[in-house]
């Protein structure tokens, strides 16, 4: 029997990055301790705070919502789970069922915002419209916009998403490779808010690896949808595969990269770009019309051409 490095009980998890083997109890405690640390640093999770939780049905958001619900028995915040339905048949509709089951088990109501209701079309209709760009290029922008809209509708003080240490490291590497220092200065534990235009966004899972979210869910019997998005494509795919390979050979690399991301973000001057109010939707924008609205207009034109 392999013993837990901390308590001597039977270990069920091997952590290659630090050589520890952990039992179920010690792993769960470690996972939750890291989330607690992120919440403490962020500072928004307190009594009465209205916290929108982005829930996709996947392992990260399932773990996040479950941990927040567990902590919330002592905190007294208002948790507002929101699922963004991009209109990907065979994927999001199945994940939604799992998300609903999870919320029901936690006695929370799931709010669903769908692309089809908001924009008149889903991602299935967008895929293939533009030969130069795949659906993935539109999806992230629109999902962020929808989450912000939901946050405004639900009067949320903060938005939390299930971005983990893998995601943080991937984004950091992507932005370095693109020389996007302005994005680097904005990407940390918190994406700062702009009053009335953009509700601040936090990543409480930023100190846990992606794989650890799945292990946490398995150990605590938290339901989540096991499957990948059929439209997943682009630069991030290659970066993700690369980092997983590196981690396999040099364990600890992902954590080192995500920590480096936070340190670089602290060291860079804050982003002083002017923030505009989008003339179409009224949310924050870097120009007269925000990216989400611009892309919607482009898709509208493509629909008419097609």
């Amino acid at each position, binding site marked *: 029997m392999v013993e837990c490095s901390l308590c001597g009980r039977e270990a069920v998890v091997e952590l290659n990055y630090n050589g520890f083997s952990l039992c179920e109890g010690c792993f769960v405690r470690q996972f939750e301790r890291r989330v607690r640390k992120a919440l403490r640093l962020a500072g928004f999770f307190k009594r009465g705070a209205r916290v929108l939780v982005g829930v996709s049905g996947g392992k990260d958001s399932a773990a996040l919502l479950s941990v927040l619900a567990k902590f919330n028995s002592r905190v007294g915040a208002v948790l507002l789970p929101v699922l963004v339905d991009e209109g990907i048949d065979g994927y999001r509709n199945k994940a939604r069922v799992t998300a609903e089951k999870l919320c029901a088990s936690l006695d929370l109501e799931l709010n669903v915002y769908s692309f089809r209701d908001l924009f008149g079309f889903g991602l299935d209709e967008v895929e293939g419209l533009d030969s130069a760009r795949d659906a993935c290029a539109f999806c992230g922008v629109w999902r962020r916009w929808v989450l912000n809209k939901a946050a405004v509708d639900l009067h949320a003080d903060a938005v939390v998403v299930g971005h983990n240490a893998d995601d943080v490291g991937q984004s950091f590497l992507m932005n370095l490779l693109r020389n996007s220092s302005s994005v680097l200065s904005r990407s940390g534990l918190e994406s700062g808010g702009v009053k009335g235009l953009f509700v601040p966004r936090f990543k409480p899972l930023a100190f846990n690896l992606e794989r650890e979210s799945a292990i946490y869910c*398995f150990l605590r019997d938290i339901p989540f949808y096991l499957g990948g998005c059929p439209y997943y494509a682009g630069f991030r795919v290659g970066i993700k595969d690369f980092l997983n390979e590196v981690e396999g050979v040099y364990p600890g690399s992902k954590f080192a990269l995500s920590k480096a991301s936070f340190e670089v973000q602290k060291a860079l001057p804050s982003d002083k770009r002017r923030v505009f109010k989008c003339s179409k939707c009224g949310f924050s924008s870097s120009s007269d019309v925000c990216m989400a609205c611009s892309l919607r207009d482009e898709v509208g034109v493509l629909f008419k051409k097609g």
Partner: protein
Amino acid sequence: MFVFVKSGERRKRVVVKAGALAGSVVKLSEVGVLKVNGKVAHPKKVLKEGDVVEFVRVVYGG
């Protein structure tokens, strides 16, 4: 002795030496979690006759 290696809904019977470790029967990587008989397991868990070993892929895109 024999154990089963599970992949999706399929199970394949595999002959292993007594005392074989769970992590030696499947290919491990950063994209999945090792399970024995449906529970998360350490790669150095010693297998017993008839155990069902599975490497569940959990890291996808999107």
